[in-house]
C-alpha cells in the first residue's frame, strides 16, 4: 500500500511526492526538515555554536538527499530522519574528537618573523598625549594644515577656505608637518609605536 498526501504523516507524504520527482514538495519537505533538525540539535547539543549547528544541518540535508530512496512510505518519516540525524551527528563528533586529538592547544602561537613590519598608515596612534604635544611644537601653518586635513578630515578645498591658505601651501605644510611628527614620535629602533 502506497501512502501519499492523505496520510496522517505530512512529512512522509511530502517525501513520497519527492521520491516521485516533485521538486516543490521536496523543497517544502527539506525546509520543514531543516527546522526540525535545527530544533533537535539545539535541544540535544546546546553547546554547538550556531555556525557549527548550521553546518551540521546542511550535512544532514545532503545525507537525506543521497539516501531518500531508503524511505519506506509505510513507515513514519520522523524516526527515519532522526536515525540519519543521530548517525551524522555521531560522525561529526568522531571527526571533532580526531581533530582535537591531533591539535595542541597553545595560548600564544610561537611565530617568528624575519621581516620588518609593514608600514601601516591608517592605524590609530597609540599615545594621544604625545601626539598632542608634538603637534603643539609645529609652526602655526603646519599645525593648521594637520588639524584641518587630518584631524577634522576636511578636503583641501574646504581647508583652504577655512584657513585662507592656498591648496598648494596646505599640501607643502602637511608634508613638512608629517615629516616633523614622524621624527618626533618615531622610536629610535625604527619599529613603530
Amino acid at each position, binding site marked *: 500500500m502506497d501512502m501519499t498526501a492523505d496520510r496522517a504523516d505530512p512529512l512522509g507524504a511530502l517525501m513520497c511526492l519527492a521520491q516521485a520527482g516533485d521538486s516543490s514538495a521536496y523543497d517544502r519537505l527539506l525546509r520543514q526538515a*531543516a527546522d526540525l533538525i535545527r530544533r533537535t540539535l539545539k535541544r540535544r547539543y546546546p553547546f554547538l555554536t550556531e555556525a557549527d549547528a*548550521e553546518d551540521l*544541518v546542511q550535512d544532514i540535508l545532503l545525507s537525506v538527499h*543521497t539516501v531518500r*530512496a531508503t524511505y519506506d512510505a509505510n513507515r513514519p518519516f520522523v524516526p527515519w530522519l532522526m536515525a*540519519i540525524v543521530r548517525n551524522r551527528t555521531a560522525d561529526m563528533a568522531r571527526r571533532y574528537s580526531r581533530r582535537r586529538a591531533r591539535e595542541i592547544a597553545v595560548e600564544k602561537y610561537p611565530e617568528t618573523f624575519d621581516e620588518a613590519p609593514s608600514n601601516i598608515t591608517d592605524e590609530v596612534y597609540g599615545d594621544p598625549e604625545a601626539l598632542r604635544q608634538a603637534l603643539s611644537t609645529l609652526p602655526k601653518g603646519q599645525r593648521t594644515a594637520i588639524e584641518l586635513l587630518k584631524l577634522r578630515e576636511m578636503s583641501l578645498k574646504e581647508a583652504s577656505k577655512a584657513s585662507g591658505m592656498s591648496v598648494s601651501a596646505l599640501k607643502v605644510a602637511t608634508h613638512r608637518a608629517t615629516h616633523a611628527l614622524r621624527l618626533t614620535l618615531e622610536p629610535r629602533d625604527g619599529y613603530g609605536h
Partner: protein
Amino acid sequence: MDTDQLIAELAGRTEPVRRLRPPWMRAAIWLALAIPPLILVVAVHGIDVDLPTALADRRFVIEQIATLATTLTAAVAALASTVPGANRKWLWLPLVPLAVWLATVGAGCVADWRALGSAGLQLRWDGACFLPMVLIGVVPAVAMVTMLRHGAPLSPRLSLVLAALATAGIVNFALRFFHFGDVSVMVLAWHLGLVGLLSIGAGMLGPQFLGWGRLLADLRFPRPV
C-alpha cells in the same frame, strides 16, 4: 552556501528515485541470485555425500538448517542495517542460528574426538574445496555489497560483517554436500575461520566501501563540515 540556497539546489535536482524494497524482500532477491551458482557448482562437482544417510543424521540436518537460517537472518540484518529508522534489534537475530551452528559443529568435534581420538581433530588443507568455495561465494558477495551500497551507510562495518556472515553461510551450506562425516574440525577451522577473517576484513574496509563520503562525493556539493 547558506541552507536556503542548498535546499533550493537540492530541490532543483529532484529526480524520481526507485524506493528500496523491504529488507526481507531484498534478502529473498539476494538468495535467488546466490542459488544458481550454487546449483551449478554442485551439479558440476557432484554430491559426495549419500543424501539418505546424511538426511538421517540429525546433527547434519540441524547444522544445515542452522547454517541456512544464519545466512538468511544475516542477509536480512545486513540489509536492514542500511535502512534509517529500522528496528536495530533485528541486527542481533543472526546470533541465534549462529549459536546453534557453532554448537552443532562443536558437538561434531567432540563426537569425532571420542570416535577417532586425536586423528578426529586433525586439521588438513583441502584444496579441492577451495575453487568451489570461491565460485559459490563470488556472486552472493558481490550482489550483497552492491545491494548495501544502495542503502544508507549507518554502520558500514556491521553491515559488511553481516554480509560476510551471510555469504560464508551459504558457501558452507553448499560445501557440506561435498563433505560429510568426520569433518567438524575442518568446518570449524576453515569455514567458520573464513567467516571470522572475512568479518575482520569487511569490518576494516566498511567505511571505504560503504561510507557517507562516497555518497556525498557523488553529489558534487562542497561538504559543509
